[in-house]
């Protein structure tokens, strides 16, 4: 069977040494793209964690607790929970990266560890009394909120919420502030 020009060019294209060199070049290009994407995604992420107490009472017995306000209060009210009031026990803002877990203390007996897993995914480990009680791996893009909760005494509840926030404004340099 004679080779048409199209067949000849295709035969040249599928020549084994050329295929190998093309595959090597494509692999190298893919590695460069992935590594640059990895570099881009390894930047620190800013998150906020809150320890919240839910109750049907109008006031909290602890005077240091503040009534929860803002969009987070609205979200919890819209959810089908039975509690009428939510109080903020603690709030922490922190940054995470993909290298190590960030420990965030929420109360005397409770802390969380958070790590960036890339592609907007995070891992949140909840510890109570030094024991890990829950681990959650999930995507946490902007406007998304993760809440881990459970029952508390006297028909109340506790929540630990984690969500992304904007980076805090950078503080001016001490020299610039002194000159002014």
């Amino acid at each position, binding site marked *: 069977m004679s080779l048409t020009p199209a067949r000849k060019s295709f035969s040249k294209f*599928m020549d*084994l040494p050329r*295929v190998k060199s093309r595959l090597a070049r494509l692999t190298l290009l893919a590695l460069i793209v992935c590594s640059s994407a990895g570099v881009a995604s390894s930047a620190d992420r800013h998150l906020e964690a809150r*320890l919240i*107490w839910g109750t049907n009472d109008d006031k909290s017995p602890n005077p240091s607790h503040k009534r929860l306000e803002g969009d987070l209060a609205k*979200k919890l009210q*819209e*959810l089908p929970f039975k509690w009428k009031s939510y109080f903020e*026990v603690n709030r922490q803002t922190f940054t995470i990266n993909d290298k190590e877990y960030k420990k965030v203390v*929420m*109360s*005397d*007996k*409770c802390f969380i560890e958070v790590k960036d897993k890339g592609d907007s*995914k995070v891992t949140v480990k*909840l510890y*109570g*009394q030094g*024991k*890990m*009680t*829950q*681990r*959650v*791996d*999930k*995507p946490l893009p902007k*406007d*998304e*909120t*993760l*809440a*881990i*909760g*459970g*029952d*508390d*005494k*006297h028909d*109340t*509840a*506790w929540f*630990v919420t984690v969500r992304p926030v904007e980076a805090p404004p950078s503080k001016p340099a001490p020299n610039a502030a002194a000159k002014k």
Partner: protein
Amino acid sequence: MKEELQLDLQAYLDGELSSKDAREVAARIEIDPEARALHTQMQQTSALLKGNEVDRRLPQTREFFWSQIERQISREEQRGTTSAPWWLEFLRRHVGAVSGVGVAAALVILGAVQLNLVSSDLLEEIDNPLDETTSFSFRSESQKMTVVWIANPSSKKAEDEPDPGEEIVQ
């Protein structure tokens, strides 16, 4: 008869007869004047042809032609020994179809995730390491909130017993 004699004499001159037949032909040449004359004529003709053949020479030597043939043979042998692995042969035959299907599938998945057609719940993993508790999760799409609820069955037994909630909030 004469034709048969010519063939015998020709074979005798070329040395193609067996020893027995050669002796018979040689004896015939001795006694038969016709055979002797024919034999002499054939000898002279053969000598004339050998001595007066024009020497024709090719511009390339025979070694040149043989080296070309040898090179082609070795090239064919190498192609046979270094045959591509099976997966590369498969790719060669189906590279167009496989790459097209792969790109289409990747685009569909990416689009589904980007347009939130695929719930992010499918991408989450929840691990409950404590045996005495169970957990379940639910997601509110409207509030963009995922709630992981830790249920401790033993907390319903007695309020005096500590539960994970007390450990965490206090």
